């Protein structure tokens, strides 16, 4: 029998192409259908809030190479864009593909110029004159919630959604607590900033169908979204997914710009292309996070937490999109891995004159963990107990039968204490605390901070259409190769290798002879895409299931071929052949069974529900008490996402997520001034993490299988941003805890750290306790 390759470090079959000729991203496409394409450039609002008095494109139209120029009025017959989730988000907060009357954030598109050559477009957009009547900007969540300036007069409020009843919060929630700590913290706005910005290429065929190449996370969802933007049936739209240069949640569906490009292609009767600049990407691709959280935690002096409350104010930006409903996920995960006797959570989402909010790696769950893990540390500091002890005291005991939380989450399996202990051991926690004590005793200017975060998160959840599921098609060809069609949509995760491993293990066909296809809606009409860490546990499980079913189809054909009973046949994966039991010479190769009728199976895998990976992160920082500079020295993590299919890929997901989490904790923030002007509009200003700002990461293994899929796998894509963000933030605060510092908002920049030290009245001295 062959040894299973599942669980082994198979190198990525995708890599040689990416390393030599490079991936073929949307901008790289060379396709006959796109010959003679024109280029679309957007004129974007330079002001946060204004009434549009006039838009004059005449000078642009006279510029070299300009094919056409359009304003919002030209597209006014296209459907208005309604917020998603009609039951949750205020449906009166409508958007148009190009603004017609009012602009509501810097970067909102008001007009377009279409040119023969891209350089001509860059010149011509400068010639479009837009006259604005300024309106007051609404920046800041409290200001928005006050409803003094409305973004949408017709809505009558800036509140886009309400989750839970604030009036029903219990006045006596913290009764009986020896210690209660309250604080309002900010989970700041960040830019997803995939290395590949947004792009599109579109052409309408003579049959009246649109073919659109769009970097996305799920072509089928993008097809539906684009069809809605254009007011056409989704059967009229074919999405093809080129290579995608990172997404991080921000490339789901379709954006207004994608609709505009498709409209231009129809209007002009020729293919149209668009690729945004980084400046446009930073101001006009959805942002992530942006929650203000009022947290209260209380309990006994023995470390037992008795009650916890989380009140969220979520920034939706100017137009409510997915970001507006993410507080529901934050609320779902309110109590995380802990057993709190009493807990409450409520949220409101408000609109502001800023870039709309969408999903960003973790999407609502990092916000829950950040609030909770800050709360645990503040409680620990209040009662003078080690943060690790406080966590151990409150973690749920191990369970293998599903555990129901007060907020409706059904945790599938978990062993949170073991994850904590493993992480502490891997980090050398006790020695770190001794080193910290030494530095505190000697008044070292460089203080050591140790931060913990224990988490549980939700991955692979279903949606309103039902329980989580995904489809896969596996076909074996007569030449001994195989093709897989998947409804997932890799953009760095390595599905081509991972799905091939799953099929190879069943079919006995080498990984390098298996081709994965995805992202073409004509080829694969159904699919949920890649996001929410769902792909392996559903898409991968579907591939395995299809492969197993294919073997059974082949078995019946082999039985006819060998004139034997199907039950007497053994499939030998090592030879990729069926043989009659006890007579190995009577055999037929799998590939030979594909000679006549195609040998393929399409199947749907359905999971009983979401899975809940968990773990503990430990971060170690040096904080210079004279400059306020925090330097990340170590990140040690235990991330239990069930059974691991390919450790190489799983570790890659963890590394990337840890870095993005550390980046949010230490560096990144998308900043607006009081007038709604974005201040971080390039990679020169937006502090995108570089290689010098993180150490190598230390990963410890733990794998608690889930019973929700045959692979035993949970999602791993977002663990890093969920665990590392609060671990690093907690480490920075911990470095200064003995000086009386209890909290520093993210990013814990030198300025913020220094201010916190000033507020504690002890900057530059490492020796005085508070």
């Amino acid at each position: 029998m062959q040894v299973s390759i599942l669980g082994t470090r198979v190198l990525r079959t995708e890599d040689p192409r990416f390393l030599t000729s490079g991936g073929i991203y949307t901008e790289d496409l060379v396709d006959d259908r796109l010959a003679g394409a024109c280029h679309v450039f957007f004129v974007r609002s330079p002001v946060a809030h204004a009434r549009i008095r006039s838009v004059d494109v005449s000078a642009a139209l006279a510029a070299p190479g300009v094919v056409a120029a359009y304003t919002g009025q030209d597209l006014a017959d296209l459907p208005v864009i309604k917020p998603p989730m009609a039951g949750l988000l205020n449906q009166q907060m409508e958007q148009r593909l190009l603004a017609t009357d009012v602009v509501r954030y810097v970067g909102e598109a008001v007009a377009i110029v279409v040119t023969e050559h891209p350089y001509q477009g860059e010149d011509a957009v400068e010639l479009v004159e837009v006259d604005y009547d300024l309106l007051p900007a609404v920046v800041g969540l409290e200001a928005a919630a006050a409803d003094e300036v409305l973004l949408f007069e017709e809505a009558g409020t800036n509140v886009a959604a309400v989750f839970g009843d604030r009036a029903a919060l219990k006045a006596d929630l913290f009764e009986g607590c020896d210690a209660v700590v309250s604080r309002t913290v900010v989970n700041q706005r960040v830019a997803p900033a995939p290395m590949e910005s947004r792009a599109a290429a579109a052409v309408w065929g003579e049959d009246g169908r649109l073919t659109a190449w769009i970097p996305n996370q799920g072509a089928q969802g993008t097809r539906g979204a684009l069809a809605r933007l254009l007011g056409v049936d989704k059967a009229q739209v074919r999405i093809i997914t080129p290579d995608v240069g990172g997404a991080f949640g921000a490339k789901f569906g379709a954006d207004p710009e994608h609709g505009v490009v498709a409209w231009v292609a129809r209007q002009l009767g020729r293919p149209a292309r668009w690729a945004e600049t980084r400046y446009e990407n930073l101001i006009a691709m959805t942002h992530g996070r942006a929650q203000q959280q009022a947290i209260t935690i209380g309990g006994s002096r023995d470390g037992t937490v008795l009650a916890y409350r989380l009140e969220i104010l979520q920034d939706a930006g100017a137009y409510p999109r997915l970001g507006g409903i993410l507080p529901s996920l934050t609320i779902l995960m309110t109590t995380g891995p802990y057993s709190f006797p009493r807990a409450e959570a409520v949220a409101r989402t408000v609109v502001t004159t800023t870039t709309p909010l969408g999903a960003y790696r973790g999407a609502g769950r990092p916000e829950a963990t950040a609030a909770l893990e800050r709360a645990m540390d503040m409680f620990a500091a209040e009662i003078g107990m080690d943060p690790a002890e406080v966590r151990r005291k409150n973690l749920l005991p191990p369970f293998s039968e599903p555990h129901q939380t007060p907020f409706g989450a059904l945790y599938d399996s978990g062993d949170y204490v073991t994850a904590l202990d493993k992480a502490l051991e891997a980090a050398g926690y006790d020695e770190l605390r001794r080193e910290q004590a030494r530095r505190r005793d000697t008044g070292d200017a460089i203080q050591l901070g140790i931060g913990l975060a224990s988490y549980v998160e939700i991955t692979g959840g279903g949606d309103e259409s039902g329980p989580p599921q995904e489809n896969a098609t596996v076909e074996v060809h007569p030449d001994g190769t195989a093709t897989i069609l998947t409804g997932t949509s890799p953009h760095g995760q390595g599905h081509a290798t991972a799905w091939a491993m799953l099929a190879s293990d069943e079919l006995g066909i080498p990984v390098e002879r298996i081709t994965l296809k995805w992202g073409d809606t004509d080829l694969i009409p159904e699919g949920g895409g890649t996001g929410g860490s769902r792909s392996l546990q559903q898409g991968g499980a579907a591939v395995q299931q299809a492969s197993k079913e294919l073997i059974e189809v082949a078995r019946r054909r082999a039985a006819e071929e060998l004139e034997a009973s199907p039950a007497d046949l053994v499939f030998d994966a090592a030879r990729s052949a069926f043989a009659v039991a006890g007579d190995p010479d009577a055999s037929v190769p799998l590939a030979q069974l594909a000679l006549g009728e195609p040998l393929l199976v399409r199947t749907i895998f359905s999971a009983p529900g979401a899975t809940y990976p968990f773990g503990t992160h430990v971060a170690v920082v040096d904080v210079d008490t004279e400059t306020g500079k925090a330097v990340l020295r170590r990140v040690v993590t235990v991330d239990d996402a069930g059974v691991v299919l390919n450790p190489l890929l799983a570790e890659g997901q963890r590394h990337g997520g840890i870095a993005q989490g550390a980046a949010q904790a230490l560096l990144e923030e998308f900043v607006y001034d009081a007038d709604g002007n974005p201040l971080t509009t390039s990679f020169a200003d937006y502090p995108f993490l570089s290689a010098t700002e993180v150490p190598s990461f230390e990963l410890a293994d733990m794998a608690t299988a889930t019973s929700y899929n045959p692979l035993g796998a949970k999602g791993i894509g977002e663990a890093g941003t969920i665990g590392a963000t609060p671990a690093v933030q907690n480490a920075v605060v911990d470095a200064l805890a003995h000086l009386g510092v209890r909290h520093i908002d993210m990013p814990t920049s030198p300025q913020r750290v220094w201010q916190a030290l000033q507020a504690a009245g002890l900057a530059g001295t490492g020796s005085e306790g508070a």
Partner: protein
Amino acid sequence: MRVELTVNGRARADEVEDRLLLIHYLREVCGLRAANVGCDTTSCGACTVLLDGQSVKSCTVLTAQAAGREVTTAEALASDAGLHPVQAAFQQEHGLQCGFCTPGMVMAAVGLLAENPHPTEAEVREGLEGNLCRCTGYHNIVRAVLTAAAAGPGGPASRGAGHDEHEVSA
């Protein structure tokens, strides 16, 4: 204007707009699209190529400035014998995910190792500071460069991917 230069070992002469950036020349005129444009401010390094053996960000070089010089892109690294040692190390250590930064990152690494064949981890991180990656957290990129350095010009032994004909070191 007319520019004459060498791209991946082949002499070229092209008529180009004065302001044409080298990255756009490589992508649109030469059809070499491995290098990408990732920002507007010379910050990200996705466009990194070698100019006379030194890594440069081709979004900040005019095509005219490359006249009379030799440009090497990621497309030229591999040979019939297989991947270049740095490319092989990136695959071996899983130093790429979405791949967008990869051609630039690999060229930056090749340039780095040409200058410093045996860098420490800190030197690798310093050397790649101008090349941004959103997927890997740099962990495996750094490992890949160290692996390539340890393997030397012959490449990671386990891959047998060494080749010398197209060595691009200055």
